[in-house]
């Protein structure tokens, strides 16, 4: 989710990411900072994103996260895999719906 959001929006700070994810989910998901920041750190440690200090639109110092090339590849791959999974699931769900 974080990676796809970053891919779609480009460089983004933590708050922006959280809001965007909430919006995308139609406010059905709530992003807790206590989960968000460790996740960002984990992704950074794995080399999928990088971070840099910058200035946010309201002139505050903020850390901006960007997708690395490796992150892009990872997103593409995961999207592909997810599509396969959801196709399979959709097939099974259709089967269930037919009963």
């Amino acid at each position, binding site marked *: 989710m974080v990676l796809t959001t970053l891919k779609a929006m480009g460089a983004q700070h*933590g708050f922006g990411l959280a809001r965007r994810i909430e919006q995308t989910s139609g406010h059905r998901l709530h992003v807790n*900072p206590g989960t968000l920041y460790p996740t960002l750190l984990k992704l950074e440690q*794995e080399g999928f994103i990088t971070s840099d200090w910058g200035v946010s639109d309201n002139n505050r110092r903020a850390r901006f996260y960007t997708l690395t090339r490796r992150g892009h590849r990872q997103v593409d791959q995961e999207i592909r895999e997810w599509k396969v999974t959801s196709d399979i699931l959709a097939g099974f769900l259709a089967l269930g719906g037919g009963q």
Partner: protein
Amino acid sequence: MRGLRRFALKVAGVFGAGRRDHDIDEELTAHRDVMEREFRRSGMTAAQARRAAGAEFGSLASAAEAYRDQRGLPALEAWLADGRDALRSLRRSPLLVLSIVLVLGLGIGLSTAMATVFDAAVWRALPVPEADRVVKVSLGFEGEFNRSVRGHRSWLSYPELTSYRAATGVLDGLAGISQSLATWRQDAGSRHVSTALVTSDYFRVVRIAPALGRVLSAEDAHRPVAVISHRLWVDSFNRASDVLTRTLVLNRATYTVAGVLPPGFTGTDVTPIDVWLPLEASTAFGGEAGLIAEPNLSWLQAIGRLRPEASIATATAEAAVIAGRWDLDHQGRRTTIGITRASLLDAGLFQSRDRGKLITVGAGLGLVAAILLVICGSNVAALLLARAATREHEIALRIALGAGRRRIAQELVAEVFAIAAAGAALGVLIYVLAIRVVAGHLPQAHGLLTASVLDPRVLTVAVVLAFGVALVFGLAPLRQALRIDCLAALKADRSVLGVRIPAARLRLWMAAVQVGLSVVLLIVASLLGRGLDHAFRVEPGYSTRNTFVVRPDLDVASGPDALGEQWRLVNGLRGQLAAAPGVVAVGLAAVPPFFGMGFGAMRPDGAGEFVQAHVNAVDPEYFVALGVTPIAGRLFNPGEASAAVVNVSLARRYFGDERAAVGRSIATPGSGSEPGTSMTVVGVIGPIQTLSVGLPDDPTYYLTLRDAAPMSPAPALVVRATDATPVAAIARDRLRQIDNGALVAVTSIEERLAARTGPARIGSAIAGVIGLLALVVAAVGIHGIVAHAVARRTRDIAICLALGASSAQVLRGVMGQTLRAVGLGALTGGGLAVVVAIAFSRPLKALLFGLAPLDPAAFLTATAVLLFVTLVAAYVPARRALGVQPADALRRET
């Protein structure tokens, strides 16, 4: 791969935590601020917005904590924090901690140093390839036998060596070695070089290849060739490339240098050898070819190399068979042949002692090392107990607040580790210093000892010992710390109750152990010191003052009459010396005082069996030179033969008393084809000490030089002079007149006496130093315990003082516990010392010079010194208690 990268980043994340913590805090705060602004934009008031943002964001701290957990390794960080906490808490009682580290360092340093010295002295293998396959062959005899000794009784004769070599199937080569000093005559003057006469398979056994030229081979047995050490080549030949064409004039025989050995090899004994000569050739040149044929003379050390398939066990089994075969030719003699792994020092430094005694000495050293480590351990335990006791309140509080006992245990363990690390570091330092000191006192072993300084094995041992001691002794207090009953500890009025009973008893016990062990060490040191003092007071039974042993170098020309020439030289020198001003008497003795003693069989008349006794061949003037007078009968007359003088010990044992002995006869067994001799006892002398000091006089008989075997080498001169007569200078001058270039050794009997007490002096010094250190350690430890107790009980003391207790009462109260511990320890230690003295009484006797191992003065002195020092150590911090200001103390949170 990805996991590895993440782990590396996590480890890196542990460090530089401060700046990163700041970053994440800023990021999180920014996040919350933006949130808050959004709420305000949606129409909330500032306060409402803040509340809403706070509610939605959750706890800033717990978010930061989750982030930190992801960033680093929580376990590692906890350990580092524990380490920091440990250091901080140790800093709170610096004196106690310092004393523990000091004790631990001393114990580890000294015990590893001792182990190294012992290892170098006893177990170090020869510096040769596959040294573990090189064995020493030694002999032992029982029953009826007649044997001459040149060196040590366990050595072999040449016929025995060749017979063994012919019989053995498990040894690949058996080399005989005889070491001596040779006079090297050069144009610039004469000097001594240490030489080893070796059989030609010596270099095959040691497997040393030459650096230049060649080593000795079987063809060299009768050739005048020499192999020299690298050191001699460098120092005396200036690395000359033509060294292989040079010659050496040793004991007047000329040898051609055949080879130079590699730098590291200095022989198979502690005394570094400079020249190796073929045994057969050099004895022939020295006029001692008869030695080769002598079947009953111990003069060759023997080393052999085990064949690849053989072991010491198979070699020992074979040796028993060979010994049995030898005994067939010697009725009544039982021979044992020992096969042991050859080590460098057992032949030289400990030549006069048997291996069993050495093992006893080793066990003694091990005991001392163990005592030191137990002292260390009990100190560590005392420290931890003291800490656990003072922190009982804190720990109980933390447990009550929900801290895991495991976490608390980790903190305590971290403290132990910090102490152990410091102790190990100090131990290594002390070890290095101790080795330097020992090496300085044992020049022969210098190379051996310094080679192993900072050996990784030693460092490992030091570290393992430190942590082992710390953990083993740290566990008990740890258990105690964790068994705390929170409620009781929090409720209890600690200022009155102080330490709970079990902890106090355990600490008392530890202090007692420490004091007791120090007492043991101090008593041993004091015993040895008093033994030494005793040695200098022992009456040798003759005049040692102004008495000298003069031994000219008998390197006279080769040839069949070499022995005759030696005698002429000695007799010539004797005549010259007797005429010199200031010389009172000049006697001759086959074995001069403190140069050993002959050992042989003899049979008193009327007895059926031969018995062993000490024997010496002397001339009539010998007794005059020593100032010995007979207690019955008379001494030898000039020119007398077939006469014997016996000592009182022999007279009493075999003839009833000294008067009855005069006129009786003693017989010696024949050797080989020679018939035995019978001698009439003409006189009896009192006990005189010429072999060792302070030991009871063994049965000894003296025969005239005329009766001694004609094979025996020329005797040494014993000279008594008036005060301030320069005997050495006179002897050198007179000898030059007879033979320019010959060297002469002059030693005063007093010097020999002092040399005889050398092992005791070294033993006493070592035990004394260790005893003193143990005392210091015990004193520091007790000081630490009392200081801690006083610090902890400041409030009790303040209350007592405030309620009107007198200083003396307070002092008594504080010191009472210590007194009980010290007293108990001293008593047990004294008892233990008695046990040690009895268990080690045999080796101790040799070092005590006649002093009883249970010498009361030594026991009392040591105990008194210890009691005094420990009481002072307890009194100093106890005094501090009296300076306590009640008001201050009661305000203080202890």
